[in-house]
């Protein structure tokens, strides 16, 4: 039997004449954190949308925890969750109300207890009765993460999870994600522009450019392969198509 938590085979998505991603294939083993890296327009959000079943691929297949996300996504959805800066929680509801609604949608047992537990761990207890729209960007990010963890997901897809956070809070979130993946044995796929974050959290990295995966490996492997000292330089090599130059040198 497969031990893959996420499996994408030959994913292609076309919007009319525009090809957003082309022939994307990768597999993520259960447990651990995998990074999805790429510049703007590389195809990260399109890939994540297809993994979630929000977007249908033009071609190819996605399996999450063994479930085909086109035909049987309702088997997988209770076991996964996501957070993205592209979607919001209703601003007029309080944090507690939003988390309660999502607790019910995910059929969480004892949702109030789970909300209290998450609020304490993510340091949002004092925010619970404030309207979500009144929160700062950093506070909203933590609340969005609380929503993403409400059902103890086995597969967590995160798009820019530390965007707009100050370095201290961002570091604190990264520590929490590391702990969550380890304690729960969860699989996290993380799309990020923050190279330090990826180097620290991810055991495996998928590099995207122009709608395809152009390289993959552990951060250490990529640094060795490109002869660079940090992942940001690797990212620039790939984003600026300096790969052949680097390889030649």
């Amino acid at each position, binding site marked *: 039997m497969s031990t893959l938590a996420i499996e994408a085979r030959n994913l292609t998505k076309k919007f009319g004449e525009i090809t957003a991603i082309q022939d994307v294939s990768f597999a993520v083993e259960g447990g651990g954190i995998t990074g999805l890296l790429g510049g703007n327009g590389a195809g990260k959000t399109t890939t994540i*949308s297809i993994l979630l079943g929000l977007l249908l691929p033009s071609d190819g297949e996605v399996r999450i925890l063994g479930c085909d996300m086109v035909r049987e996504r309702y*088997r997988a959805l209770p076991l996964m969750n996501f957070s993205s800066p592209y979607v919001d929680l209703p601003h007029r509801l309080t944090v507690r109300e939003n988390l309660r609604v999502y607790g019910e949608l995910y059929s969480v047992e004892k949702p109030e207890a789970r909300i209290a537990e998450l609020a304490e761990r993510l340091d949002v207890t004092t925010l619970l009765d404030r309207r979500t729209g009144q929160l700062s960007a950093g506070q909203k990010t933590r609340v969005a993460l609380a929503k993403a963890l409400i059902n103890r997901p086995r597969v967590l897809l995160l798009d820019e999870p530390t965007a707009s956070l100050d370095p201290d809070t961002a570091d604190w979130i990264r520590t929490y994600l590391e702990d969550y993946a380890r304690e729960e044995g969860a699989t996290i796929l993380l799309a990020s522009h923050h190279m330090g974050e990826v180097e620290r959290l991810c055991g495996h990295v998928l590099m995207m450019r122009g709608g395809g995966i152009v390289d993959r490996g552990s951060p250490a492997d990529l640094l060795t392969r490109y002869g660079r000292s940090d992942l940001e330089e690797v990212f620039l090599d790939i984003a600026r198509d300096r790969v052949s130059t680097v390889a030649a040198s």
Partner: protein
Amino acid sequence: MSELARDRAPVPGFSTRRIMAMVRRHYYLLRGSLPRILEMAYWPTVQMVIWGFVTQFFMGHSSWVANAAGILIGAVLLWDLLFRSQIGFSMCFLEEMWSRNLGHLFVSPLKPSEFVIAMMVMSLLRGIIGLLPSWVLAYVFFEFSVFSYGPGIVAFFSCLFVMGWGLGMAVIALVLRFGLGAESLAWVAIFAFAPISAVYYPVSTLPEWLQIVAWCTPSAYVFEGMRAVFIDGVFRTDLLMGAIGVNLVYLAIGAGLFAWSFASARQHGRLLQMGE
């Protein structure tokens, strides 16, 4: 792998809990917003007061109205019920779009069918909240109660609610397809049905060709049925059956349009992008 969702998770069926979660979400929204509640009750109440006085005036000047006291108020209250049903349904969806929440909702286990049923429940609750003050005031000021005409009138009420849901599904299908630029349809779509619903006059008043169109709307059966109750004191089962039959067609078309536009939104990535 023993933890594979495919092997261990049952196919999640229809969930009342998820439907009630969405009802809860909109209850929270209304509870925290007095202007929203006032807006729901404002227009039906104003309409009822105006038409109540018009009725009082015509009582002394028109034998037709004098013989069927309350027919105008009844028509107004029922028309508002249809409008509230459709707008209540559509507003729940628009609230999700305005708050950019659709992406979160549809990566949760919530199914589109459960979402639609939750909107129906909310439309019913919003309709009751919006219309209750006008019903109470109609009784207090004009001694008019639609319920005094028996349970048959409640059956006609229900038909109007269902018609509102069918139209609501069609409206949100268009909003899903064309984006928030089409949201004004939620407010105006219903008025295209006003002339052919025979709200204030019998269907026979219309030109013959338009009568055929009118009988394709559930509301025409309902308002004819209402007049039969008010004027003749007769409950017309044939009109109720007609309304139910045409409503089934409206529901099927509305559900089909919604399913098509939802699939199209998944094809084009609109669920993640939609918002203010």
